[in-house]
């Protein structure tokens, strides 16, 4: 039933298309006629007239073509709405592509890029005039590199094996190694159920020590070792201070492994932090703190104020 109607529609459409072509041809003829002017310049006197009549003829052709096209278009209406077509919107194909996540990712990256670019341009602007200084620092760095010892330039494998050796040496002290900052190793030492210490190494030299309680978290939320935050307990803050001084006491740039081993031996003495009374006053508590100092040589327990007499 729909077939004959369809064929008339199609023939109408094709004649309309043909008319459009004709219209375009006649229009272009108008313009070419105008641009070329007269072909042979002989009849100059009548030239204007000839040109005008030619233009008129061409315009009439355009007009008739246009009205023909209009006539065809007038009895051809827009096609009736196709109901199924509106369902194209619900086409699940678009849903099937993870467009959203990709878009989100792109936005995030664009934002990051923008932020970083802004920051770096800010920094670059600030340092624009200091270019000569940076080269100065570079020269100094070269100098120090030449002068400094090589004890920090130990390959990570060597550090690992030293640490493993120490880990095996004590059965109630475990040491784990992470390298969050590239070459430098960060040791997390868990001493029995008494304390946890974070030690930052450069090569085998100790750079930083911080001591916390066994029940305190040495890892941050992003699983990185928390190097900076102090313990919430006074006793461990005190032990941290003492550990820093011990680190300096044992410092030996030429024999870094020996220094590290001595430091670990000293740290291991804290296993009895709460259970050993002071070697001098024989009490547990002075100023509300247990004996937080360990003698460097004999590893005896002392209160901070009792130790001066022992040395």
């Amino acid at each position, binding site marked *: 039933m729909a077939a004959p109607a369809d064929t008339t529609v199609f023939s109408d459409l094709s004649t309309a298309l043909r008319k459009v072509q004709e219209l375009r041809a006649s229009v272009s003829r108008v313009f070419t006629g105008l641009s070329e002017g007269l072909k042979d310049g002989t009849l100059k006197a009548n030239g204007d007239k000839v040109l005008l009549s030619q233009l008129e003829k061409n315009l009439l052709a355009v007009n008739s073509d246009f009205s023909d096209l209009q006539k065809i278009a007038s009895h051809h209406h827009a096609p009736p709405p196709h109901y199924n077509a509106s369902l194209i919107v619900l086409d699940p194909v678009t849903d099937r592509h993870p467009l959203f996540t990709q878009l989100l990712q792109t936005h995030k990256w664009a934002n990051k890029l923008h932020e970083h670019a802004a920051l770096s341009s800010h920094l670059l602007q600030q340092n624009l005039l200091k270019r000569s200084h940076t080269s100065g620092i570079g020269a100094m760095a070269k100098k120090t590199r030449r002068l400094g010892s090589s004890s920090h330039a130990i390959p990570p494998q060597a550090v690992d094996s030293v640490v493993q050796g120490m880990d095996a040496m004590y059965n109630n002290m475990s040491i784990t190694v992470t390298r969050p900052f590239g070459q430098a190793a960060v040791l997390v030492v868990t001493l029995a*159920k*008494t304390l946890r210490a974070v030690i930052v190494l450069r090569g085998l030299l100790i750079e930083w020590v911080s001591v916390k*309680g*066994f*029940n305190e978290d040495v890892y941050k939320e992003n699983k990185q070792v928390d190097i900076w935050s102090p313990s919430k*307990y*006074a*006793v*461990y803050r005190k032990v941290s201070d003492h550990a820093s001084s011990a680190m300096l006491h044992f410092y030996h740039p030429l024999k870094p492994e020996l220094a590290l081993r001595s430091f670990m031996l000293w740290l291991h003495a804290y296993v*009895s*932090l*709460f*259970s050993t*009374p002071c070697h001098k006053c024989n*009490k*547990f*508590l002075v100023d*509300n*703190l*247990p004996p937080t100092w360990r003698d460097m040589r004999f590893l005896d327990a002392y209160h901070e104020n009792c130790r001066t007499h022992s040395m």
Partner: protein
Amino acid sequence: MPQSCGGRSLNTFNILLTLLLLIRVLSYPVPEGKSGQQTVEALQKQIEVLGATVSSNFTVDCETYGTYQQTSQPQHINILHNSEQPATCFAVLDSGNCLVADLQFDALMNKIKMFYIQKKNARVEAKGLRYEYGDFIIKVGSVVLGQSTSFKGVIVEVEYMPAVVVSECFGLMREFMFSFMPTSVIDATTNHWKTKNDAIYAPQDTVLQYLEHFNNFRKSAVSMMPPMQ
């Protein structure tokens, strides 16, 4: 080991020394002619002399639920709250099995009231002051039983926060307690630590010890009943 101090006169109170980490319970005879409130105040004064500062109040309370009598296996559930863990509820069974749960657990008990019914006059509450002194937390409070608001005893809790194993800081805690309670005998441990001396401390350890003391208070309260009637 808590012992009721006779129960002959109401002027005698139990003083329970609860040490977190090194937790032990002591009986401590109050000097003749002193009231419980006076004992608490004297203790508090001594702690303040040490240099400790009051940080807040504390409460530990306990409700008991039991099965109906017709059931074959009688079972009790003790529901405890500790102000140190304000969003937590501790449920302890007869076996000592302790469930640590959100405060919402109270509402669950309501849903099983067909099976477990709240015991009347079994509520025990410890209330008092919480002191901080360096790494120590000291709590001194009085214990109240059931509907009566009368004084049933004194409870002292000492917590040394940095340590996690009881056996390690035994001597240290003992020395510390001696500094403000020189007259008390500090050599008995609660049953709780007898088996868990080397375990890592958890909040339920505190609560289980409170329950142990509370049960002793209840027993001594019952034993005090006959002479009063």
